[in-house]
């Protein structure tokens, strides 16, 4: 036996090491030097071992860890173990890699596992016994009468979202409550640290799944965690790499439901979400908005034909991915901009520009662009009062397939624009379309809207349900309710309530599609709460639940694998475009922020969401080539639709979204347009919260939320600069005391905010 092999066997007689928090402890075991662990949880005063069979740090023959030495810190909350493991190199030689395992407890009781490997040469992992590496916590033998009894009583929520059969690539965490042990386990997989994932190994959410894994022959056993169902490669690259995950274990005597599980999971992870951006781009949203206004006037953004002119969906109609789809379908020369691509594309830009024109200080910069978009839209549809005519069900002559959310969004945007522009006729048309088109569609499908439908017959086309569209519907119904009275108002409120209830009762794993829809749902609830007093408790529960559902669609990790994004692109804190599209997109990110910010005018904010929004505030700029100083784009202020992630990294890009360029103005309005902080502070989020609240806008009222995302207290000072507000009255709502203070004075403010503290300010304009 060689010396190397001797070394790789490790030290056989190490005593177990215990690290202990107030409710759980991890026991590191050394079975003939082989490093394993067991977990314990505290019930009353008794420590209970979750399962006597130890679990591997990493499951897989390539990762057999035998300790050569260990060190424990004085606080006994961290242990470092080192060793060497023999492996087969890509040249088939037998080599050793050095490894360092750190197991530690954080302040919230998470047990962090971090394994660092140092390979002198790339290695080959054989995957003889299943796919590796897997990160599995052993649960021991299958529970008795598992599927007849234990099964119904357990609670399992897998973090990553799914659509139909397809997993997305978002929330890398899970919740499991074991009904026999009456304890719950949380797991979080640090995808940022595990940058080795890729086409040579395991392509993250392409190859991995989370959940319970049953294994073994006659001795059936269960384990919980991250496991592969396929592999992309089997080469572990040379150099250093990290495998990192965390487990949180706690006594849970009560049977939990999926809502509670999700809430627990997100609340427990809260502090793992850093609330400050990882970099700042050195450019303001105001500058980006002005640039977008200029770029939007360029011919690259316009289709000009004898039939009229309209915005192209993408700059120069250049969308490599749609071109590839066209080629695949045998239609390689399809001109995306040949006809107005979708009405909502035009409307969404128009709405943003209209807002910017009327309410922000960029009137001069926006005016020309807005006028052109406005005129072109009206011209195409035949006049000021007929913008919507071509879209109304009563004018449809063919049974073409239509996307449901796009349809609802279009009606909603049109109604909103009509409200802002005080075009009663437009509002009536939108309402008529709701009654004649949208409501029959919803009724026909029991308020479970299809993803696509035939626009005349209203039949579902193709697969799956778009539950999240109910968020848009509820939003629209509450707008209509707020504008109505008496029985009419009751009618709309009942529809909104039914939309929310159905969405809230949809399967926990099936509510995700377009990522901004859940924000619309929460916004709708915030308005419903004002109008439907008797369902307050229920609605507050739904708001919390749907917020947690929305948080699943955020990227809880930075993309660190080999993806061909610009080096300044940051993904963390952005939301996925749409489950399961697996990339982050600008329009959806800002729509999401807009929805939640608007909801928080009335609702108490979710702290995790605020942290994400603060990161998004800066990282969302990465979609705009000008922000990352990418000079390869002629129209550098029009956002890219897609920021790539590993799972879709081989797809062609979607293009620069002209339809999303309007959202640069919304971002400006959300984060900058009405208030200036005394000094730039990456840790302070300032949100204008009632941008979507038409009556308040028209009444010259603005509400703001200021949030301290830092882990230390901050003194936040600033000044309001609200165009058209000649005088101001403030009301201040303090998050901790929930008191209401009337302040009068100039436009300066200064508050001290504790970590995670927030404050709401209401500012009323008016004549001096």
């Amino acid at each position, binding site marked *: 036996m060689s010396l190397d092999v001797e070394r790789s066997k490790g030290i056989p007689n190490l005593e177990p090491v215990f690290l202990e928090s107030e409710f759980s402890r991890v026991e590191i075991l050394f079975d003939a030097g082989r490093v394993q662990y067991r977990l314990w949880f505290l019930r009353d005063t008794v420590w209970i071992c979750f399962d006597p069979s130890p679990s591997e740090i990493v499951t897989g023959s390539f990762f057999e860890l035998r300790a050569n030495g260990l060190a424990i810190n004085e606080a006994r909350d961290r242990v470092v173990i080192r060793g060497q493991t023999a492996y087969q190199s890509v040249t088939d030689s037998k080599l050793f890699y050095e490894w360092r395992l750190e197991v530690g407890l954080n302040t919230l009781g998470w047990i962090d596992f971090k394994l660092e490997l140092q390979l002198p040469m790339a290695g080959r992992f054989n995957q003889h016994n299943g*796919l590796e590496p897997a990160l599995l916590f052993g649960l021991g033998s299958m*529970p008795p009468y598992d599927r007849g009894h234990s099964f119904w*009583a357990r609670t399992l929520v897998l973090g990553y979202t799914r659509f139909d059969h397809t997993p997305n690539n978002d929330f890398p965490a899970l919740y499991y409550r074991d009904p026999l042990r009456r304890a719950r386990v949380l797991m979080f997989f640090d995808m940022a640290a595990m940058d080795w994932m890729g086409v040579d190994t395991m*392509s993250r959410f392409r190859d991995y799944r989370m959940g319970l894994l049953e294994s073994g022959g006659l001795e059936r056993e269960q384990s919980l965690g991250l496991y592969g169902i396929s592999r992309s490669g*089997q080469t572990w690259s040379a150099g250093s790499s990290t495998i990192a995950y965390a487990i949180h274990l706690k006594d849970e005597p009560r049977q939990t439901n999926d809502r509670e599980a999700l809430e627990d999971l997100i609340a427990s992870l809260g502090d793992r979400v850093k609330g400050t951006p990882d970099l700042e781009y050195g450019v303001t949203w105001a500058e980006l908005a002005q640039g977008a206004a200029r770029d939007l006037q360029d011919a690259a953004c316009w289709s000009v034909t004898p039939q009229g002119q309209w915005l192209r969906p993408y700059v120069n109609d250049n969308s490599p991915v749609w071109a590839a789809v066209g080629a695949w379908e045998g239609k390689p020369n399809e001109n995306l901009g040949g006809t107005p691509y979708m009405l909502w594309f035009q409307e969404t830009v128009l709405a943003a520009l209209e807002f910017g024109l009327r309410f922000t200080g960029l009137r001069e910069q926006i005016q020309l662009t807005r006028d052109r978009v406005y005129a072109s839209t009206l011209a195409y549809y035949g006049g000021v009062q007929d913008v919507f005519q071509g879209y109304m069900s009563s004018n449809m002559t063919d049974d073409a397939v239509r996307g449901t959310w796009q349809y609802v969004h279009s009606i909603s945007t049109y109604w909103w624009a009509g409200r802002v522009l005080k075009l009663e006729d437009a509002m009536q048309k939108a309402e008529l379309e709701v009654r004649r088109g949208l409501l029959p569609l919803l009724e026909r499908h029991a308020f479970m809207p299809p993803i696509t439908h035939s626009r005349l017959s209203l039949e579902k086309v193709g697969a799956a349900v778009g539950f999240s569209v109910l968020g848009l519907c509820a939003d629209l119904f509450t707008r209509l309710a707020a504008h109505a009275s008496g029985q009419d108002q009751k009618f709309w409120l009942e529809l909104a309530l039914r939309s929310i209830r159905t969405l809230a009762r949809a399967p926990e794993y099936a509510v995700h599609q377009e990522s901004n829809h859940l924000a619309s749902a929460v916004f709708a609830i915030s308005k419903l709460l004002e109008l439907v007093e008797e369902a307050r408790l229920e609605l507050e529960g739904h708001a919390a639940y749907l917020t947690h559902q929305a948080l699943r669609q955020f990227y809880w990790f930075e993309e660190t694998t080999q993806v061909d994004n610009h080096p300044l692109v940051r993904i963390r804190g952005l939301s996925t475009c749409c489950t399961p599209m697996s990339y982050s997109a600008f329009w959806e990110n800002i729509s999401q922020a807009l929805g939640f910010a608007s909801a928080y005018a009335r609702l108490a904010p979710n702290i995790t969401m605020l942290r994400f929004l603060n990161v998004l505030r800066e990282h969302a700029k990465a979609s705009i080539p000008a922000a990352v100083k990418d000079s390869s784009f002629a129209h550098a202020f029009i956002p890219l639709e897609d920021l790539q992630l590993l799972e879709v990294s081989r*797809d062609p890009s979607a293009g620069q979204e002209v339809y999303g360029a309007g959202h640069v103005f919304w971002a400006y309005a959300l984060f900058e347009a009405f208030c200036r902080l005394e000094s730039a502070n990456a840790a302070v989020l300032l949100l204008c919260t009632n941008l979507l609240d038409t009556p308040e806008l028209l009444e010259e009222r603005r509400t703001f939320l200021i949030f301290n995302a830092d882990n230390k207290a901050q003194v936040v000072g600033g000044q309001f600069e609200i165009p058209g507000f000649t005088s101001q009255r403030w009301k201040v709502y303090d998050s901790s005391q929930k008191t209401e203070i009337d302040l009068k004075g100039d436009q300066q403010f200064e508050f001290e905010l504790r970590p995670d503290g927030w404050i709401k300010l209401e500012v009323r304009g008016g004549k001096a």
Partner: protein
Amino acid sequence: VSSEFELRGSGQRLIFEASPHGGYGYALEFLGANGWQRVSSDNPLVRGLSFNLRPNNIKLTQDVLEFSGETSVLGTTGSSLALPYAGRVWLDTVSGWFQVEVRVHPDQDVSLQMNGGFEPEITVDLGALPPYDRGDHVWFKTSIDNPTKWNDEARGNDFPALYYFDSYQRFELMMFFDMTAMNWMGRQNIARFLNYQCGFRRRYKPTPFHELGLHANGFSGTTFPAGEQVFAYSIKLRAQPDAPTEAQALCELTSECLKLVPSSADFSSFPEGSSSWQDFAHACAEELMDAQCWGSNETYSDYILNYVNGYSPAWAEAFEGKNLSIDFKSQPCLDSAAFIAFPLTILNVVRHEPGYAALLERLRGFIGAILNSSDNPYTSHTGITGTWQHLYILEQLWMTAHLHQDGATLEMIGQEVENRIIPLAHQTAHLFPLSFDKASLRKHGNGDAYAVGGLYASFMFNLFRSTGKPEYLEEAKLSLIALLHLPVNSLSQEVFLLGMGLQAANLVYLETHELVFKEIYDYLLAQNLRMMYWYTDRTQAEYRDYNIYGMFQACTPIIYPAFFENIECLARIASTLETNAPSLGLLRVFDHARKNNFFMFPACLPANRHTSNLLHIPFENLGVLEDEKTGWIGQEIYGCGQVFQAHLMWEALAHAEDRAVMVLNVSNYKALELSDLERQQFTFIVFNPESEARRTRIRLVGLGASKVTIGSSLETLELAPPSDDGIEVALGAGEVLYLRVTPD
């Protein structure tokens, strides 16, 4: 492409071509708008590092492609060994499916190579993933994967089939896997549905591609057994210009797979000791009076149990697992009484036997006692309850009370309906949770049981029939429409809830003539059949004592066939066949079930499986590979109502002298009051499942003076010659007659 190794069906062809990997792989094409379009090529018959079976020798003989070949595998001893194989591929002209059968003959056990994936698998390679797979393709494909699953994670072990619609090339492709033939599956390799799934799969190595088939997500062992082993599956494809919804796709898939249901004459036979359903119902009623089925305590002088002797090893283990114990003998079981009393009430009217009357009286005595006590679950307003159990017991109590015109009980149930059940439906948007809090009507615990909507609709429709109040009809409609639109994989839980749903949909359709309810009927029938066992388990000797074909998975993911659910599903489906002509495949299912459900009784199983001397009280479960132990849950007293229901369905009112001929009562569940039974018209389907003609007499029992008509369809009924010896019928192989008995 034309080839001598080609099979051609209606709009589809399967072609063997020389493979770059050596041997012949098969390609699939369909006849589209632009001629023959290829969807897949170079497929091995079986995939995996050890297999990848592409035969070297092929010949076409009388429309059958016969092939053979040999490959090299690793033995469990580490040495290389030859794996010869042979088989055939043909087009079944009756069903329109391509049939594939491969027989491999390893001399020794083979060591499977689970390296980078799992084997063996049977998949059809659809080539490169479309560009923008997740931004375009994902929205427009339609895919039905199986087996069923609950809560998006736990799969059952039911329907071995898949459907896929490709939105670019506009074709649909279906596959069915013959799990009866593939009996090599086990804990030593891949334990069938513990790891296998049928459906669509993306793969990313070497480049992104997609495939359809039987694929695994894990394994139990690495040994493929020596001796002759079979791989058998079916493929069908054709042009499909319109994107189907999943509901349409599932209907299409089950409809096509029903064409593959084997003749029960070839596949199932009455077990030894299965004299008749009449005998078993009679004996069951007698045994139900035995002390092993009853208990008493300070509150109740006489209460019925859930399991014979309260014996359920599975439940005992489950409670022990929680450091608890359970004594079912001390637990009065309202469920049992309610579930038995309803069908027994009907049977007691049509077949006057003292044993039935005595049992019914005893059951009703207990029901009355518990409903008048503080244990009445419907007068207590706190606690957590299982949704379907709460509602189903209530519905069964209502049915019995209504038959007997028991005003006090009906009043109590009416209160519960108005104050709790309908508000629960509204608060949950007719999307019912698995369990709920009785006080707040909020969901409790994890997961959902949306199919409760079927039970709710059935109950509401009967309330509508009884009261004429349109609001009940509206409730039934709302809950049925919700079932149509929920995600296709979210309905499977307790299986008979789907049966009740399809029955309700049929009744609502007949009442309203709104086509959507016909659509819902078809869809829920497909969902119900999706949870059927489309195979019998021959993987281990212990499972070969019985045949589970045509039984139903109790509940997704409770992965065993269960008697109560088997009959409740079939009886509900049967009640709709008077207005929905069944396919040959569906009739064969009923005939399999008519025979095979006797295996649920200890009387038809080997003595070493008996757990009491009550041999006519069925076991809750039969062991299958995924969940092994026959009878481990206990002998289900609560399921005995379904013994009477089976009798009512197959024999109690009419039967054939020749037992091979099935006489199916399709008029059950019609009576709401006992007096209705005297006025009721009964319709029967007479079916010859044999492969040869039969001549026999149909005996009618307990139907009084009546007019009898008979014909090949309900539209062509003619008066049958009256005879005391029954009605003589002659049926060709697979032929169906309708027989109707109308009171004078």
